[in-house]
């Protein structure tokens, strides 16, 4: 069994707002081994981004991690002081955000944004840092890197900006990369390029990756294992193949049905209803209001995470009875 790089257990992150307590992450567990890519899937509001922020402990107030443990290379990150955490951010764990327009600082040049981080964690001079930055830009496939270094974010295209954001995340060679919907705001053609690049970089840098997305297509392409989240809770966790061919949770089935396929002519099925109110979540199983298989028990009791077989877990009262449709491709 490969070493466990990251072990998130029963994480709970709540936001204490004027409108009430938003339970953004309410018992999510996740683990990643070395050189592995794990997918974290769900609609917006499922708690995926907040989970990533919690791992790095950069959850903005009024959010707070209230329960759980996050073990990285055996150490519990939640026990670390702020000063100790800063040494993890960048050299050990890094994050790429969804929208490069807002994740790159508009008033600093590309060079400054990259060299600031390099000089922070590594003892190199500014000139050496610039050279490293230039090399990084080359590795993420940016042409004319010397020119791009001097540019400001608003002068660059979306695809280029995201590559730079990725370069920034990789600048200190982290062991774990958290990719929060990295291609969602890019054009479709660029999406494919960036995903390919991420695959390559992962091998080159010997990194593990958590790929956060709502797109099952990306999951199929990049991940080895998947965790399906909804309203801050885990619905199902299994290897990618099992999730696709043998899903055990109605939500997973619904997500699969929502992905169009060229091969088969099939009507796209949408998932009816809206994401739930995280301040007052539905009773029992969080998904039951939108679940077409829901029965009485689903609205009364919260389903526990049960083992289907080795490496395959699901949180549903009815998983034994249901015969859900997977996808052969």
């Amino acid at each position: 069994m490969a070493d466990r790089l990251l072990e998130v257990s029963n994480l709970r992150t709540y936001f204490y707002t004027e409108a009430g307590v938003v339970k953004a992450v309410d018992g999510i567990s996740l683990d990643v081994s070395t050189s592995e890519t794990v997918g974290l899937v769900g609609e917006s509001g499922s708690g995926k981004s907040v989970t990533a922020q919690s791992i790095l402990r950069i959850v903005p107030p009024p959010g707070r991690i209230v329960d759980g443990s996050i073990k990285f290379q055996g150490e519990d990150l939640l026990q670390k002081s702020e000063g100790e955490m800063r040494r993890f951010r960048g050299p050990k764990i890094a994050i790429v955000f969804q929208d490069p327009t807002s994740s790159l600082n508009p008033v600093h040049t590309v060079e400054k944004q990259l060299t600031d981080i390099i000089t922070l964690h590594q003892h190199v001079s500014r000139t050496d840092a610039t050279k490293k930055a230039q090399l990084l830009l080359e590795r993420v496939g940016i042409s004319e890197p010397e020119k791009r270094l001097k540019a400001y974010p608003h002068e660059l295209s979306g695809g280029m900006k995201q590559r730079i954001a990725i370069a920034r995340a990789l600048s200190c060679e982290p062991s774990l990369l958290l990719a929060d919907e990295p291609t969602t705001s890019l054009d479709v053609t660029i999406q494919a390029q960036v995903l390919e690049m991420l695959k390559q970089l992962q091998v080159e840098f010997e990194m593990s990756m958590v790929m956060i997305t709502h797109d099952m297509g990306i999951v199929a392409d990049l991940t080895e294992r998947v965790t399906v989240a909804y309203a801050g809770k885990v619905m199902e966790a299994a290897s990618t193949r099992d999730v696709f061919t043998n899903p055990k949770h109605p939500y997973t089935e619904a997500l699969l049905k929502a992905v169009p396929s060229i091969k088969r002519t099939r009507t796209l099925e949408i998932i009816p209803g809206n994401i739930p109110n995280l301040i007052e979540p539905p009773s029992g199983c969080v998904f039951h209001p939108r679940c077409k298989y829901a029965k009485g028990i689903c609205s009364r009791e919260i389903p526990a995470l049960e083992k289907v077989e080795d490496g395959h877990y699901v949180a549903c009262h009815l998983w034994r009875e249901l015969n859900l449709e997977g996808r052969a491709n």
Partner: protein
Amino acid sequence: MIPVFLGVAILTFMIGNAAGNPINLIRLGLRNPNPAVLDALRHYYHLDVPVYERFVFWLWDLLHGNLGVSISGRPVGSQIWSWAWTTMELQITSLILAIAIGIPIGVYSAKHQYSKADYVITSTAIFGFSMPTFWLGIILIIIFSYDLGWLPSSGASGISFAWWGNPFLDQIAHLILPVAVLTYVGLATIVRLVRANMLDVLRQDYILAARASGLSDRAVTYRYALRNAISPIITIIGLGFGASLAGAPATETTFSWPGLGYAFTQAASNLDIPLVQGITIVITIMVLVANLMTDIVYASLDPRVRID
């Protein structure tokens, strides 16, 4: 800039001619100026030519520094210098203090949103720009000058520079109350602005990304967030300075501070038209210069607005 200057010039010229010509208006002020002075003014205003030519002559004189003679007989230009200096002494000191104190407080308030300190700060700030500047001055004078006798109540310097021992300290003693008042009001605006902008910026992804890169909280707040938040604030500070200059009459009158504002109030009261026009033009120029400098600072801070 030029159109604005012309606009003010035209307006000032026109109001001076509201009674047909400036001399008539002066007479209405019932100050009975010296006939010799009136003659000099008739000459200065070129009353023998039609209105539009008069304007050109007047503008020409203006641009060459000839601002005419006040009804007291003294040339306008020579007095304006020392008044301008005195006004600036007050305005610039207050501006610097307001910025130096206001920005850290605003940042602190934003970072500790909803805390008790934040609540106190925002309440004090909103009081600050709900009160007439000069009224605060009056109250402070009553308390500190008359009741406590700690500080002088008027003027920019005491008789024979007697306050606090030596001329330098005497000047400082006289500066304290007016500066305190102007600074407080300036603080109110700046603190609110900085707080609002910082709150916006701190929400942004690039701040989260900066934190995710391992930067310390202090570095993120000051080197990154503040740097992003500051640009729109600069513009408003510049405008506020202009407004403060324009509002000088009230503050200076309260403290009998011998600056442009105080002089203007007396002049307008006496319908001393040449003096009034001169001061208006000078203050307008000062406001325009302040705006220009603001624009320059703004462009240097925010690369998105640079003119190539």
